[in-house]
């Protein structure tokens, strides 16, 4: 609880400072014998959207899942290199994965609301981390998170109805609200719009741009237009290697690497 407040405090302080939220160096990931990522070094900055692009199977989702140690769930997965969150090694023995995931939220490819009411979906995170002191505070957190996720107006009259009854786009915004409710520093999004129609996608993209004010956001996407629209920095992955990283504008207008050029112009991938 105390640690939580300290970290959120730090997040606001650091808004102006150039220290990145995540500093990753020489990250390699192995699934059993197979190497999925080789020597990825990338910084994730606060108040920015970093997009990871590349063809399927290039390792961008694997990299994303290293950042909140979701790869731990997969049998036979091994990570080497250093991943520092505010200077702390998240793979160090002293790092509690529960605290890590409270600081680094995640939104998945397919909306996955729990089979509970809309309120309970958002209240889930604050409850397990004991963030709210009492019921009023919990309600305030839920309202606030739904507000930030741009969903409050649509659901405020039916908070007790199942979250699974919402439309796909609303479900995904509910999942974003659920992630925000834990007050993380970083939000990871794994192709958050791939299961949504264009209108819902536009809504989520708008939302991502608004959320940038409070969080560092990393988004994996297959859509280069989406990366160009929402992100300030872009990393291009190919065959488990981070080929090129830089300002989004530079990557899309003036890529330095031939492979990036080929990919963004649609020659492969």
């Amino acid at each position, binding site marked *: 609880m105390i640690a939580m407040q300290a970290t959120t405090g730090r997040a606001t302080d650091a808004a102006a400072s150039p220290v990145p939220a995540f500093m990753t160096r020489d990250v390699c990931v192995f699934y059993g014998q197979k190497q999925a990522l080789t020597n990825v070094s990338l910084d994730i900055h606060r108040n920015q959207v970093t997009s990871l692009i590349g063809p399927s199977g290039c390792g961008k989702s694997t990299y994303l899942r290293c950042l*909140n140690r*979701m790869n731990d*769930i997969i*049998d036979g997965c091994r990570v080497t290199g250093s991943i520092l969150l505010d200077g702390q090694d998240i793979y160090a023995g002293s790092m509690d*994965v*529960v*605290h*890590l*995931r*409270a600081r680094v*939220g*995640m939104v*998945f490819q*397919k*909306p*996955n*609301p*729990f*089979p*509970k009411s809309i309120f309970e979906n958002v209240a*889930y*995170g604050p409850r*397990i*981390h004991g963030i709210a002191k009492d019921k009023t505070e919990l309600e305030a957190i839920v309202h606030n998170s739904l507000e930030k996720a741009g969903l409050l107006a649509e659901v405020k009259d039916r908070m007790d109805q*199942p979250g*699974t*009854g919402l439309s796909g786009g609303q479900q995904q915004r509910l*999942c974003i609200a*659920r*992630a925000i409710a*834990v007050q993380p520093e970083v939000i990871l999004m794994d192709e958050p719009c791939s299961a949504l129609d264009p209108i819902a996608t536009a809504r989520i993209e708008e939302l991502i741009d608004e959320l940038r004010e409070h969080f560092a956001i990393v988004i994996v996407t297959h859509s280069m237009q989406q990366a160009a629209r929402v992100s300030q920095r872009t990393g291009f992955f190919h065959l488990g290697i981070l080929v090129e990283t830089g300002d989004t504008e530079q990557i899309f207008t003036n890529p330095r690497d031939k492979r990036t050029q080929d990919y963004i112009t649609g020659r492969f991938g």
Partner: protein
Amino acid sequence: MSLSTLLLALLVLSSLAFYLGRKKALSAAGGNLRTLHSLPNYYGYYLALWAGIPALAVFTLWLVLEPQIVQSLVVGGLPEAQRNLSPGRLGLLINDIRNLASGNIVSREVAPGLQEAAEHYVRLRDTSRIALVVAVLALAVAGLTFGRQRISAHLRARNQVETVVKVFLIVGSTVAVLTTAGIVFSLVFEAGRFFVAVSPAEFLFGTEWSPQIALRKDQVGAQGAFGAVPLFAGTLLISVIAMCVAMPVGLMSAIYMAEYAPPRLRTVIKPILEILAGIPTVVYGFFAALTVAPFFRDTGAAVGLTISSESALAAGIVMGIMIIPFVSSLSDDVINAVPRAMREGSYGLGATQSETIRKVIIPAALPGIVGGFLLAISRAIGETMIVVMAAGLTANMTINPFHAVTTITVQIVTLLIGDQEFDSPKTLAAFALGLVLFLITLVLNIGALRIVKKYREQYE
């Protein structure tokens, strides 16, 4: 021609019809299959059905009706005196005639009249058989010819064959439903006869169970008592004890298998647990009676408790062990069916494994888990062998698990074993108990469906 040969001939005719129908369709198509309404095989099936079904229907009907007709003809040929015998004695006589005809042992001296009747019987039966063969074969050939004439390129053979298939399926499910209805009806009917002798109120609310009927007026204990409450209480007590064992153990092992155990361990543990369900209940019964019950009695004696050597506790615990697999296997399956995305969503918010299980997976899997519980409960209520051997026969009205109790199923067994008259309330009580058992299970199932509906959540 024996009946099986006739059936075989019918089969051959139908196969021939299939071949002929196909051929006729092909020639009707004139080499261009696209002009046919259906695929050639459907014309084959169509003709095979025409050849087979009417003939088979007549065959079945004939076999059902033949004995009655032949019998009434034989009785008609008997002398006046014998025809006017009471139905029971007439039945015996007919039985003898039939035995004589088939060369079996006869219960009385063979009089010339009897001999003659038997010969009459044999003659009638032989005629009937020949007529049957002729009728069935003629009908098959007629059906074949008629169907063949109807085959043309425009005949909608596929639709008609599909309709016949649908009718077969409907008949199949009707048989299952009617059988159930028949069992329920017979239960209700026999229970009704019981309730004529003993009032339903006494049966349902009476607290004394002593099912006996006096053979003579001055017999000791001539008064029977049919108050089933002690049985209900005993059944409930044992089921509750069984569920207290099976629910936690089953659910925990299901959670361990589904969430914690490495896949290789799971492939070993799950079948082993399922073996528990495959052990014959009589084995559980003597395990309960010879090992568990004495153990409880001795342990009880050691700590100063009086536990009878046939106790509800022993029976309930062993029954609980028996139904563990019902709970664990079903729960394991439904827990595994909870989408991976749910787990990831929860882990992604920083929930621990046990929080995820408690707050997300169990609620999502609840309908299936409740289903498993209710299946286990109805299994426990219907279980007989363990209780017969370990819980005793005494209809004690108690909720003390250290005493001997008895259950509905055990009483049904004891009411019906041995030589019984089937019209005394004592025997009929078994049907009333069966009806109660049936109603309890029915209510449990309806309740299960309700709960499942209430908790069912939709996920994509």
